[in-house]
């Protein structure tokens, strides 16, 4: 198991809602997205698959190139592919932007 953390200080738009989507099942993950206390976004990942820090970084760089909300994201992952990760993140954004 691996713990990965990222910071995106440029994401400053204030958010008010929370979102919870997904499930920690094989090839899937859960996302807890909530407004961040201070400035910028923070990502914290717990994954049962080791050695994919670079892939996670690439996915979140792409995600925060379009999304600018100051959110705290926590992920529990059971081997989601980069594609599923992005879909789960977009699903969570859909909930908090409603």
């Amino acid at each position, binding site marked *: *198991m691996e713990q990965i953390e990222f910071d995106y200080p440029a994401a400053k738009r204030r958010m008010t809602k929370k979102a919870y989507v997904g*499930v*920690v099942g094989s090839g899937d993950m*859960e996302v807890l997205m909530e407004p961040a206390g201070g400035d910028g976004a923070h990502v914290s990942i717990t994954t*049962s698959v080791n050695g994919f820090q670079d892939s996670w970084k690439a996915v979140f760089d792409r995600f925060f190139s379009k999304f600018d909300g100051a959110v705290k994201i926590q992920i*529990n992952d*059971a081997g989601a592919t980069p594609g599923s990760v992005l879909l789960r993140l977009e699903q969570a954004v859909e909930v908090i932007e409603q």
Partner: protein
Amino acid sequence: MSTSEIFPAFVNRKSFIELDGRARARSLFDEGTAKELVGPFDRVQSPWLPIQGVAPQADDGCIVIKGKIGGLPAVVISLEGAFQGGSIGEVSGAKMTAALDLATRDSETGKKTAAVLLLETGGVRLQEANLGLAAIAEVISSILALRRHAPVITVVAGTVGCFGGMSLAAGVSSYVVMTKEARLGLNGPEVIEQESGIDEFDASDRALIWAIHGGEQRVGIGEADALVEDDAEKIASAIRGYVQAGPPSEHRSEQVKLNRDRIAALDTSTQIDPISLRKKWNGNTTTGGAR
């Protein structure tokens, strides 16, 4: 021609099986009454899984929602079958027990609160073995305390099914609702095959499994009360009916003499087949789900 004439009913129905654990629980409540207790943002999760290199889930796969069903107070406890096979660990077990005990306390002070258990589970979580076993004992004892006051309704919808220690929880419930996709049994097919050999039970034989553990057979022999189609509205309506009915005068698990006599009367010199068992035990003449 309207759409209902073009498409048969099963196309337009809202499947219950396709919902996740939380959506299943929410679909049962009267509109606007559901409130989740100890949700994912409370982050009460298993402390044991990360130590063993397994990612935990923020609600430990156990969703507890309080609200009203058919205007009556009720709590729904739903196990998420996609997380660790819906298995019971220390945290999910404690959530179940606490929810049942709160319902008992409310019921004792005059506010009768029914409990609905949505069980999609293989039983004890192996990574938390002893704590899981203890949790099952606590859950069963809490069900026994509550069912004197208010009904405890178990729903096994599928597709995980309900096995192991949690099948005992289903066994002591007031009512059991199943779909024909669901399975209910103490030992799962693979466990039986592993312990007693492939001659005893072939775990790759799906027709055999559903003829023994399947919803149609369980309702057929009287081990479950209602066979409902995989339709969220039909399942919710069956549950509303049982919540309104209150606890039965005698629970299935209290019928000790009946079950002793049934087993004593079985002729084991020849292979017992599922269909004749339905007739013998339940006067049931259905033949669905068996080959």
